[in-house]
């Protein structure tokens, strides 16, 4: 058996899993998106682009745009909050404490995201923890829940670990002597950060941003629970097509379009991503 054949054989289980769990559902979804909705919410198979035409109507494009804005804002805020944390974890925290500290970053995953969203509701609602405390000093009650701010808060909270981990990985392996060289050549701390640390952690920034941006684009739980489903985002729109409106072809078309947007992003950022794997 040639080495090439052997390699293919070894990759086979993985390829099978991908085919069954990723390609097949995508194909089914695509097939469904070309159909038409029956009177009782079933799918009449057809070869029609009607659902796609509808998905590109201004009202739905506006929802897509809102989702993109939410995902961008989430990514940006995560980056701003995660960078100092990852920097401290990777470069300044005592080496022996690092793995314990990383466990703390991952710890929230031990609780279901749904439960954690409810916890936020209890903290933010009118009689919640925050407003109760504010009332003590004579402020409020404030409307902290069921608005876009609450949605963004929930998203940033949920996605933050996915930003911290890749940033940590790239900052931790950054050679200390490069920062010393920068200082030696006359760069103060701020300029060394800007001209050396940031460019050299680019791979982590790109990886973390994609890891946060992609799920945020299809965010469903935070808009639904913290936003009170008052504002429509792509995730909720798609969910509604399947569960409420029972227009599966339209939901499938929206899902497929969202996947295309993500695919486009991956193609756009393929070079820095490859570097992050190589480094």
């Amino acid at each position: 058996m040639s080495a090439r054949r052997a390699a293919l054989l070894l990759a086979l289980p993985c390829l099978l899993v991908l085919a069954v769990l990723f390609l097949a559902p995508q194909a089914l979804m695509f097939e469904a998106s070309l159909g038409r909705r029956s009177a009782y919410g079933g799918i009449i198979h057809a070869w029609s682009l009607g659902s796609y035409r509808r998905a590109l109507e201004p009202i739905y494009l506006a929802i897509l745009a809102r989702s993109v804005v939410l995902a961008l804002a989430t990514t940006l805020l995560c980056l701003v909050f995660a960078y100092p944390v990852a920097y401290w974890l990777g470069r300044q925290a005592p080496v022996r404490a690092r793995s314990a500290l990383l466990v703390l970053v991952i710890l929230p995953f031990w609780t279901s995201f749904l439960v954690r969203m409810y916890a936020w509701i209890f903290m933010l609602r009118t009689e919640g923890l925050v407003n109760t405390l504010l009332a003590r000093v004579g402020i409020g009650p404030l409307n902290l829940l069921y608005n876009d701010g609450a949605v963004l808060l929930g998203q940033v909270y949920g996605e933050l670990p996915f930003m911290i981990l890749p940033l940590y990985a790239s900052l931790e392996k950054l050679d200390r002597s490069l920062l010393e060289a920068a200082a030696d050549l006359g760069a103060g701390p701020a300029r060394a950060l800007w001209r050396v640390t940031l460019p050299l952690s680019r791979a982590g920034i790109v990886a973390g941003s994609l890891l946060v941006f992609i799920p945020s684009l299809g965010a469903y739980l935070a808009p639904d629970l913290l936003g009170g489903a008052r504002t429509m985002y792509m995730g909720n729109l798609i969910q509604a097509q399947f569960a409420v409106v029972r227009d599966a072809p339209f939901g499938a078309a929206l899902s497929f379009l969202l996947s295309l947007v993500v695919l486009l992003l991956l193609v756009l950022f393929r070079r820095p991503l490859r570097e992050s794997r190589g480094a």
Partner: protein
Amino acid sequence: MRGQVVFQGLRKAFGDVLAVRDVSLDVRAGEFLTLLGPSGCGKTTLLRLLAGFESPDAGRILISGRDVTALPPHRRPVNTVFQHYALFPHRTVGGNVAFGLEMQRRGKGEIAERVEKALEMVRLGGLGGRRVSQLSGGQQQRVALARAVVLEPEVLLLDEPMAALDLKLRQEMRVEVKNLQERLGITFVFVTHDQDEALVMSDRIAVMNHGRLEQVDAPETLYDRPRTRFVADFLAVRNLLPATVSSVSSGRAALRTRGGAALEAADDGGYREGAAVWIGVRPERMRLEAGGERTAAGGDGNRLAGTLVDEIYLGDRTDWRVQLGEETVTVAEPAASAQPRRRGDAVTVSFPPEAVLRLEDTEPEDR
């Protein structure tokens, strides 16, 4: 004076380990000074204190007469060539050399001009657009050198810059770096554990051991007159023997080694009757003669009878291990004057009293 460095009572500890103990040293302006010593002797820590990467627990550092002890690295008029070069992987060769000039906010034209000039100086002219990873180790080393000297520092610091190069390249770079220093007239403080490198390049060598300065001297002085047992050992004085002073008179000291051999040494004024001393004799100062007749010390020098026990052939010379009673010494015989000899031969080892070096023993203090 521009380029002068003064260390005053510097001390630095890492946890329980004293890396630098009360080091005071003046580096003259325009001098090539080498910090020489084994790993862990504190030479790199001393350099890092000068660069500002570490701050001392006690003492002061003055550069060109200015106290820089409290200044951070980016405010000190020194630049460093790092051991593994520490070139920025996200910048081109030219981008690396330009970094410091950009930090000084120089004009674009000036930067381009000075970068090209610096690259030409290290014989990398025209390679400014290359990626750092496309260069060989020797070329990367030159980039590191250009990146540091382009800023015209008052003092250039070099932290074992040649450790990663192969022997042939290292020998070339020694001469090249030395020439560069002479051309620029900048003070160089150079760290190495390689005694050959230190002897070839330096105006003065400061030998360090256990965080202290053992001896600071010109290469020739250091080689001919090592003052301590450690320095002698580090500079390949292979025959180190403990002895007792029997008598001192008219410029001669009579010694008895622990093994019982009687020797005569030229008195440098440091021998005291009855005192215990360490002495050293370089293998190349000893001569071998066939036949093992024992002659008393004195007259034409020291003559000791012994037996050849081992032969180490080194091409241009042969090192013979000779058993002299209870002691074993190494005698180097140049290939040019070699005689046919075999292990087991009876021989006489001879050397003049002037070849006997009196050495201070600084080691026990550290135990």
